[in-house]
């Protein structure tokens, strides 16, 4: 029915099948949309957040998807600036995943702020001392860059591309893409860092506070490196998931292993620095404010197991797995390492968001445990569903994978 819209020389499932799949995803999306309407209409009181937990699942979700979406800027940087040619086989996917992650995060933020109508105040009344101002600047700008990077891919759609003007436009955008890749790298590095900086500057929150270099706390650098250490393999995971779902080979394994190598190298650097940082925090900073390492943990929700899972099981282990070629070259092990890596960075974002504010700084106060309610889950699921929809549509109609024809039909 819609086969004329498919990319050149590839096969896609029937329209009916695609429709059923889309409706399945749409059901989740609508559930989340209902939650989002409740939030916007009734207020954030409908969530599980409270005065102790002003940040919760939404911010964790935002930080996690922004970190995992880092594959876009970092791969763009390596492909366009450092000219690693192989990466062009996966670059389109990284752009789409990045676009989904960033636009999704911005949608969640619209729900998360109490006065969405005032979101533009970040530009109008900026506080240049706030890390969050920098985050607002950079994620909005970078989201625009991602749109600019995504547009030529849409313009390359078979039927659209027949229009001479669109063809020329897409071509010219491609020619200048290195500029946007560079711009994206700059913007993205800064806001990945500022997201970490947001926590590192909290002088009142001993769990997160860090010394640093000039105006940037160590968390600034740790967040940048952990994002580039996990974003590329997240794209690999998305790609592999799509391969399993469609039953086709979309990107050759060599490219995936290369992405694993890149992420693994960065992850190794990150884990090394993270361990140093944790050590200095536990033995230097904490005692200076009268606290001990043990004081920072509580029960199961905020237990030490989480830290060890994050740093050892989902840090050291995947780092080793990704940098050792013989392990990395086995698909099952590469995907396992990639999964652990992504879980690790998500735990990191979770503890920095939730455990930071859960720790009762006042000795007479107590720990509270935060549970997100269905409204927060549903609206987050909405974003995931939105991602699935964008990816499904892109895969069906846009030439996302340059190798697909070669790998499957020749």
């Amino acid at each position, binding site marked *: 029915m819609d086969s004329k819209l498919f990319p050149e020389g590839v096969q896609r499932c029937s329209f009916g099948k695609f429709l059923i799949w889309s409706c399945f995803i749409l059901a989740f999306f609508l559930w989340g949309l209902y939650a989002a309407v409740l939030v916007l209409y*009734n207020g954030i009181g409908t969530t599980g957040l409270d005065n102790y937990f002003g940040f919760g699942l939404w911010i964790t979700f935002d930080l996690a998807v922004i970190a995992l979406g880092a594959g876009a800027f970092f791969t763009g940087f390596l492909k366009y600036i450092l000219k690693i040619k192989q990466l062009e086989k996966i670059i389109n996917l990284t752009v789409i995943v990045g676009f989904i992650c960033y636009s999704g995060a911005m949608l969640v933020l619209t729900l998360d*702020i109490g006065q969405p109508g*005032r979101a533009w105040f970040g530009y109008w009344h900026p506080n240049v001392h706030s890390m969050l101002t920098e985050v607002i600047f950079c994620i909005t700008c970078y989201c625009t860059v991602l749109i600019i990077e995504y547009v030529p891919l849409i313009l390359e759609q078979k039927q659209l591309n027949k229009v001479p003007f669109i063809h020329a436009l897409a071509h010219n955008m491609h020619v200048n893409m290195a500029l946007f890749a560079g711009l994206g790298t700059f913007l993205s590095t800064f806001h990945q860092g500022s997201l970490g900086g947001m926590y590192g500057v909290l002088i009142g*929150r001993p769990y997160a506070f860090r010394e640093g270099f000039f105006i940037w706390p160590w968390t600034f650098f740790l967040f940048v490196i952990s994002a580039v250490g996990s974003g590329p393999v997240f794209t690999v995971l998305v790609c592999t998931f799509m391969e399993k779902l469609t039953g086709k080979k979309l990107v050759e394994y060599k490219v995936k292993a290369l992405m694993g190598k890149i992420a693994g190298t960065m992850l190794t650097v990150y884990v090394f620095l993270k361990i140093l940082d944790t050590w200095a925090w536990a033995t230097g900073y904490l005692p200076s404010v009268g606290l001990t390492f043990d004081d920072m943990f509580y029960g199961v929700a905020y237990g030490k197991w989480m830290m060890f899972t994050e740093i050892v099981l989902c840090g050291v282990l995947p780092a080793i797995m990704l940098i050792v070629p013989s392990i990395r070259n086995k698909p099952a092990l590469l995907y396992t390492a990639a999964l652990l890596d992504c879980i690790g960075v998500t735990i990191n974002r979770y503890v920095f968001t939730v455990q930071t504010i859960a720790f009762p700084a006042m000795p*007479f106060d107590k720990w509270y445990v935060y549970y997100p309610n269905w409204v927060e889950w549903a609206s987050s699921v909405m974003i995931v569903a939105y991602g699935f929809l964008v990816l499904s549509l892109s895969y069906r109609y846009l030439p996302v994978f340059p190798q697909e024809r070669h790998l499957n039909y020749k």
Partner: protein
Amino acid sequence: MHMKEFKIKWGMVIDIDKCTGCGACMVACQVENNIAPMTKKDPYNYVQALTKDRDDADNKLRTLTWMNVYELSNGKSFPEHEVAYLPRPCMQCGNPACVPVCPVVATDKNEEGGIVSQIYPRCIGCRYCMAACPYHARYFNWWDPLWPEGMDKQLSPAVSPRPRGVVEKCNFCHTRYAKAKDQARENGEDPMNLAEGAYVPACAEICPSGAITFGDLNNPEHKVHELAKSPHAFRLLEKLGLHPQVYYMSKREWVRKQGDNYNAGDKH
């Protein structure tokens, strides 16, 4: 560390040994500052009526208590068991954690007097300041403020009510400060040199046991100037370096020790 210095520094000294934990300060604060009572039903919101109710005052993590009284315990069992009550307004920190983090300058510390402001029409409700404040002095308007029929007639005319979705906090009854300065001008006095008692927040005024003393910490004619220097005086979480303008005092050592963390083995 750079700290803004002020000629006038409004501060409180709260004598914990005098506090009975009656909560009058909390009530006075809520009335003075137009903090809406928590009501389950919202008769103006039909969507709300169809879904889950709002929180009522049971949910203490959702209530707005600019002034909040904490109960302290010495942790011992009877007969050595002792409790104390610690009223916690906004500390109006000299080096506030909340001010530099606000992305839109909706909170600032730049007015003579050193009170940390909150600009409700500018707040976007991101709650980053709440995450920053270790004293939990900041509160978010989770629901639309609603005053039951008739209660709206008691609203303080000088204090602006806040909409849903913004953060608010104690501002030492700032409207009373403005009023006191106006009064001084009318009387031909210097508004920058208010006499003791010319400006007093509602909590300090109502406290039946006189536990809260309020004044200019920099003015030797004000009682707080001396009280803050008492050997029994302390500030909350002093080691974090936020330099609160609210002091506490207690003759009991266990109470003073709860003002900060000493778990790492360092001495009081």
